[in-house]
């Protein structure tokens, strides 16, 4: 009697797990590996219902750091990668794991800082000068430290300012190895400066002691790209559905929906897909 | 050295122990035991606490093997000597109902679980009214009787009982003794350990008197009580502390 019960439990568990695996035949869904910043900004909640209404394709977004999202694509665990680290995206394509990279949109980074502004940089439009001032003042600075797109952008900015706190690891430079939201929460608690994408900042609810201190520098430009994972490397990739999503994102309709997404009246993302990208590989 | 009380008796022997010893670590629990269990009358293992009664019962049941000597079992007409049952001094009730405890014993012994059989077994030990009661909520005496019902479920040829009334009040003791006597009357061979002299008088056919792991006397009960052969037995009967 008990052994039968155990057998039934096992059978039930197997059915449960089996049922949760999408069956390839009828399931119209794709997995998009993207960044926490895109998800946390609420952009997907705006776009995906529109896309589904048009195509009946379910888009499942796995929000990770850019590095992890690229790795997810490389492993074949996603159909589409949608991140903001152009050089790494191009490397994905060059290594044969991505089919082709398309520009989709950009937003910009902003330097967030504590209201007392210990480095006295508020209102500056020169990000490099601001970073140098933080360095000079040894003011607390929180780094994502998670190989995300934002982290890469931050490191590039330090490099451009001829500084290397990530290598020197001074006490004021704190790598937390977490997502954007966690970095903002940490900065708020520590009274630290932090580089954030504007989208996450605007929709972030725990702003309390923080404010934008530097914005508008052309160096803070943040380009998003989208890549189809190469079905030649991973046969499970849903090529047609994934391509349909990419096509829609860079289509007139998709681009206009990106433009129309606003939080508190502010536009977060600026579409800049080049129609010619459809024809030629970069 | 020891007095083979069963020698010359007419009853048929069903189990014989020859030079049996049992050692636990460096301690001799039983030494040089010669013993005959016969059909027909109950055998009472009598002796002070720690004299080896429980160990001897477990040996007879086959729960443990002898360190030396041998145990012979003989076939006897009308008695299934291979099927034995044991009622422990503190029987452990399964955590289920009274009836389910009996059902469990039935099915463990390979019998079909027939509700009528269960009911009749409970009837025999006077627990029919408590069939649905959780077994662990029964009183001590009731638990002993349930243990008897479980033992009976096996349809044993030989039934071993280890001080079944040790911690019971007189009313409960009588209830248990009545059941044991009724079982004996059906031809089941009873082997029971006790240190209660009165109980030995009431139930005994044969008495096996043990002290310090040795059998000092094996003899019919009347003879043991009227004419004990050993000094230790006389002192035990007189109520002295025998060690």
């Amino acid at each position, binding site marked *: 009697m008990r052994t039968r019960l155990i057998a039934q439990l096992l059978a039930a568990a197997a059915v449960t797990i089996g049922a949760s695996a999408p069956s390839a035949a009828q399931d119209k869904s794709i997995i998009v590996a993207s960044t926490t910043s895109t998800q946390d900004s609420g952009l997907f909640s705006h776009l995906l219902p529109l896309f589904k209404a048009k195509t009946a394709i379910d888009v499942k977004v796995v929000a990770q750091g850019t590095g992890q999202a690229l790795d997810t694509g490389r492993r074949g665990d996603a159909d589409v990668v949608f991140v903001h680290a152009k050089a790494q995206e191009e490397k994905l394509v060059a290594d044969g794991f991505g089919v082709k990279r398309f520009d989709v949109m950009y937003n910009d980074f902003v330097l967030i800082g504590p209201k007392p502004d210990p480095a006295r940089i508020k209102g500056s439009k020169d990000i490099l000068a601001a970073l140098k001032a933080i360095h000079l003042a040894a003011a607390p600075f929180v780094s994502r430290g998670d190989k995300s797109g934002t982290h890469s952008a931050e490191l590039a900015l330090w490099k451009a300012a001829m500084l290397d706190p990530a290598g020197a690891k001074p006490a004021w430079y704190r790598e937390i190895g977490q997502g*954007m939201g966690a970095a903002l929460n940490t900065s708020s608690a520590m009274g630290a400066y932090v580089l954030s994408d504007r989208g996450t900042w605007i929709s972030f609810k725990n702003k309390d002691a923080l404010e934008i201190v530097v914005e508008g520098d052309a160096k803070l430009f943040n380009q998003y790209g989208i890549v189809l994972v190469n079905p030649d490397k991973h046969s499970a990739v849903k090529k047609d559905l994934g391509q349909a999503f990419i096509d829609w994102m860079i289509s007139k309709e998709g681009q206009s929906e990106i433009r129309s997404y606003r939080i508190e009246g502010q536009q977060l993302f600026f579409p800049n897909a080049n129609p010619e990208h459809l024809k030629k590989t970069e | 050295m020891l007095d083979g009380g069963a020698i010359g008796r007419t009853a048929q022997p069903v189990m014989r122990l020859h030079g049996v010893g049992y050692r636990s670590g460096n301690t001799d629990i039983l030494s040089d035991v010669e013993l005959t269990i016969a059909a027909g009358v109950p055998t009472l293992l009598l002796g002070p606490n720690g004299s080896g009664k429980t160990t001897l019962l477990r040996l007879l049941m086959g729960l443990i093997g002898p360190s030396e000597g041998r145990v012979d079992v003989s076939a006897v007409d009308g008695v299934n000597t291979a099927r034995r049952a044991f009622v422990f001094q503190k029987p452990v009730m399964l955590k289920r109902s009274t009836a389910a405890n009996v059902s469990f014993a039935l099915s*463990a012994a390979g019998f079909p679980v027939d509700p009528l059989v269960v009911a009749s077994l409970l009837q025999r030990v006077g627990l029919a009214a408590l069939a649905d009661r959780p077994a662990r909520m029964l009183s001590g005496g009731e638990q002993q009787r349930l243990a008897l019902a479980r033992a009976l479920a096996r349809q044993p040829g030989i039934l071993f009982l280890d001080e079944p009334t040790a911690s019971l009040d007189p009313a409960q003791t009588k209830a248990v003794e009545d059941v044991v006597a009724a079982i004996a009357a059906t031809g089941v061979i009873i082997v029971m350990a006790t240190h209660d002299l009165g109980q030995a008088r009431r139930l005994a056919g044969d008495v096996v008197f043990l002290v310090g792991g040795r059998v000092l006397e094996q003899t019919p009960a009347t003879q043991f009580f009227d004419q004990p052969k050993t000094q230790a037995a006389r002192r035990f009967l007189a109520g002295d502390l025998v060690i």
Partner: protein
Amino acid sequence: MDGVGAFSLLLSGDPALFAIVRLSLFVTLSAVMLAAAFGLPFGAFVALTQFRGRGGVIVALNALMGLPPVVVGLLVFLALSRSGPLGFLGLLFTPGAMIIAQAILIAPIIAALTRQVIEDLWVEYCDEFTAMDVSPLGRVAALLWDGRFSLVTIFLAGFGRAAAEVGAVMIVGGNIDGFTRVMTTTIALETSKGNLPLAIGLGLVLIAIVVAVNTLAWSVRQWSERHAG
């Protein structure tokens, strides 16, 4: 929306939140069943069998009770990834993957505690079962059944650990909105959005659910102990 808001959302039957709670329960209960299907027989086997290396197995089981969820998540992720040995199953980023991860997390708990319960019971029942000639399989069944009240407590321990876990399900489930988002990953997400009051509210809902499940199990135990001994 604040902490109280999470409750009123739940009470008013907000479909999104309700779906998250339902998925949490579904995943965790399935994981407990799966872990029990392996942990119960294995724990009973170790309790009742003498074999070489038994001591090592017991130490290992006890140590595995403290498996870090993130490590389990990572191992399951690597196994279920398209590039991993079980990638062909297509289970990564599905509730199935979350069930597997949680089951692996709590199977050692169930096995180790089952071994303890069964071994203790066996000490008590050993003589009776030997005298009654109970078959080996019958012993296992009877011990599991008679240990049922303790085993329920073990299931609850497993349930609590699985329900509270976030690291493993985040990695293998991907926290996909409407598909693999459960209470703990929602709490993590809302925290990262700086939505601390909602995160706290969801945390309270989670605690309330765990308390409710335990209360239910406790009542059932009280009732059946009175009625079945």
